[in-house]
């Protein structure tokens, strides 16, 4: 990883030189007129679009409440669709930075998209804030002064479920995940806290439509519980087919499989499914209640954690820019402001660790039907308190 740290250091040095230039541009008309430009990069079309839509609407809810300003500066958001194609995402992110001269790139639903744009964005000295994807390389050795995650390190949710399985006393757990990096990370995360027997691990292709073959195997193995990670449409299929196959007796410990973005399609079939999260619509706290209410009023559906994280990201930026008095030019100072500023988060326990990932609580949640007929995940109990992700120790953040 020698080369990567070297590059990070170079980027930081360059950024140190940059402020002079930027300030020279901004000093013409006295204050304020410069404004903030944010590129909102998310998956807004294709199979992953539901998540991106939640994220976008969470951001828009925040911007509406902030009157389209961030830290007192007029803010402009460029909505960019990454189409879930890494190559497209890189091209568009470069366009936003080089042509539109954005100050921040936020959003990022999928890890592979983040993996593709992380280098080009951070090397240009632009801050990158992920409201969902939190892959391990960026949390550990590849941690970066210009990168922040307002969500979680992906493994934390899986580890939470491992802890739950351990505490519930399950002896034999069956594992079903998609066959790609995030799927393998999920298994590793789950195993980091679950010490019982893994009856079998099944890896299915990402394009899987039909889980019939796998469900039959699960029924045959008769495990104490099923651990699964099936994001997006995969989860919709799995949950519905799980119900149809009459497997309801085996408890499902899931991560990113049932949430408010998939529940409208999963409906009653998802009732009783467990999930692990840092946030749920009914998380106690006035700030959160007020957010969920405002979101539902504006967009007509129940927000998922993606929306909450995007909402938090906007208020984080607002607070950090305010703390800097609207001066965006001094990047190291702005970075320090983002690291330490306190902002009104919807999560009661939010703060950044040294690797720029949150240190926060994680909860066991369960799918429930609200009195108005809509579905949401609801908190069962707190599992991990102020959890630091497993990779933070490997991070040597350049000063």
């Amino acid at each position, binding site marked *: 990883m020698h080369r990567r740290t070297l590059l990070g250091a170079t980027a930081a040095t360059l950024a140190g030189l940059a402020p002079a230039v930027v300030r020279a541009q901004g000093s013409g008309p006295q204050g304020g007129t410069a404004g903030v430009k944010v590129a909102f990069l998310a998956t807004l079309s294709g199979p992953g*679009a539901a998540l991106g839509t939640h994220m976008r609407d969470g951001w828009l809810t925040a911007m509406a409440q902030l009157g389209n300003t961030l830290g007192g500066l007029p803010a402009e958001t460029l909505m960019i669709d990454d189409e879930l194609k890494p190559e497209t995402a890189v091209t568009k992110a470069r366009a936003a930075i080089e042509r539109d001269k954005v100050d921040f790139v936020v959003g990022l639903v999928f890890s592979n998209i983040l993996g593709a744009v992380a280098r080009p964005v951070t090397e240009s000295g632009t801050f990158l804030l992920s409201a969902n994807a939190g892959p391990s390389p960026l949390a550990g050795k590849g941690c970066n002064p210009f990168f922040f995650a307002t969500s979680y390190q992906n493994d934390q949710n899986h580890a939470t479920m491992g802890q739950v399985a351990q505490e519930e006393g399950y002896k034999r757990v069956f594992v079903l995940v998609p066959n790609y990096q995030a799927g393998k990370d999920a298994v590793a995360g789950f195993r980091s806290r679950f010490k019982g027997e893994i009856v079998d691990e*099944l890896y299915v292709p990402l394009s899987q439509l039909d889980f019939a073959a796998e469900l039959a195997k699960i029924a045959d193995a008769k495990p104490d519980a099923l651990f699964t990670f099936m994001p997006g449409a995969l989860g919709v299929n799995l949950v519905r087919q799980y119900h149809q196959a009459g497997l309801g007796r085996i408890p499902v410990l899931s991560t990113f499989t049932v949430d408010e973005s998939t529940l409208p*399609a999963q409906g009653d079939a998802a009732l009783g499914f467990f999930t692990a999260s840092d946030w749920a619509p009914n998380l106690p706290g006035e700030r959160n209640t007020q957010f969920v209410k405002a979101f539902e009023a504006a967009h007509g559906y129940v927000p998922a954690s993606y929306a909450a994280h995007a909402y938090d990201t906007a208020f984080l930026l607002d607070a950090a820019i305010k703390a800097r008095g609207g001066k965006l030019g001094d990047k190291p100072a702005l970075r320090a402001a983002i690291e330490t500023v306190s902002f009104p988060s919807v999560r009661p326990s939010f703060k950044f660790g040294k690797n720029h990932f949150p240190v926060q609580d994680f909860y066991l949640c369960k799918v429930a039907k609200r009195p108005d007929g809509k579905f949401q995940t609801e908190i069962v109990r707190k599992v991990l308190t102020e959890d630091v992700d497993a990779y933070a120790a490997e991070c040597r953040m350049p000063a």
Partner: protein
Amino acid sequence: MTSTLLLVQVLNGLQFGVLLFLVSAGLTLVFGVMDFINLAHGVQYMLGAYLAASIGTALGSFWAGLVLALPASLAIGLALEWLVFRHLYDRDHLSQVLATFGVILTLDEATRALWGSAPLNVPQPAGLSGGIMLTSSLGYPAWRLAIIAAGLLVAPLLWWLVERTRSGMLVRAGSTHRAIVSALGVDIGRLFALVFAIGAMLAGFAGALAGPVYAVAPGMGDTVLILAFVVIVIGGVGSIRGAIIASLLVGLVDTLGRALLPDLLRLALAPAAARQTGAALASMLVYVAMAGFLCLRPAGLFPVRRA
């Protein structure tokens, strides 16, 4: 692996095969009879699922949605034929591929604009939404059995229609001796439009059947389309019999490969390696089978003789 588990996997393969058959039947007829490559056939499958789900939700009954989706799919098929496809019959295959790809892009995007990109909630078939116990511990979804039954009903009917009726004879004759059939006073244009619309309806039917099982989302037809092409190439372009056999074959190979390969590889490899290569190999298996067939029997299992 117990024998009941194997039975369940075979049923799964059959059920997947039946869906593939319903989609590929129209594709193989259109391809074989009109010599027209229609990439947009998968879109018909998607639209069938969407129509059935929307109508079903609006009327509060899955069955009403299923029944009404059929004429709606037929109408959309006719409209597309009239608007776009009919102007492509006399063009080479590559132009047809390009133009029908344009249709996919347009209709996938239109679906996204109309229904949103999130998967749709589909009403469950009343009476068939539960499972049937095969043994005391192993259940099987009733709706999947219904899909198999529907396929077993449609397949012989379609075969009879094409092979044994007068219209079927005209369609078959029209594909091999186009000029002579039209010289006999048969309106080939209308005949082809009819074949096209029936193909579209079958794909729509498949989509409506698949709705309660799979996710109804934009682009759901694209995966099925590729597999349907695999089916018609293996079965022989234009052959209904070939489509029946090949779709069941593809369904079984795909499902059983996914179920058995990782276990088989475990005999030779370490468990972790076996799982991963097994999963990768299982996704390839259908294509390996197709490449093998194309090498050994380039014209497919049941080649249709051409003039």
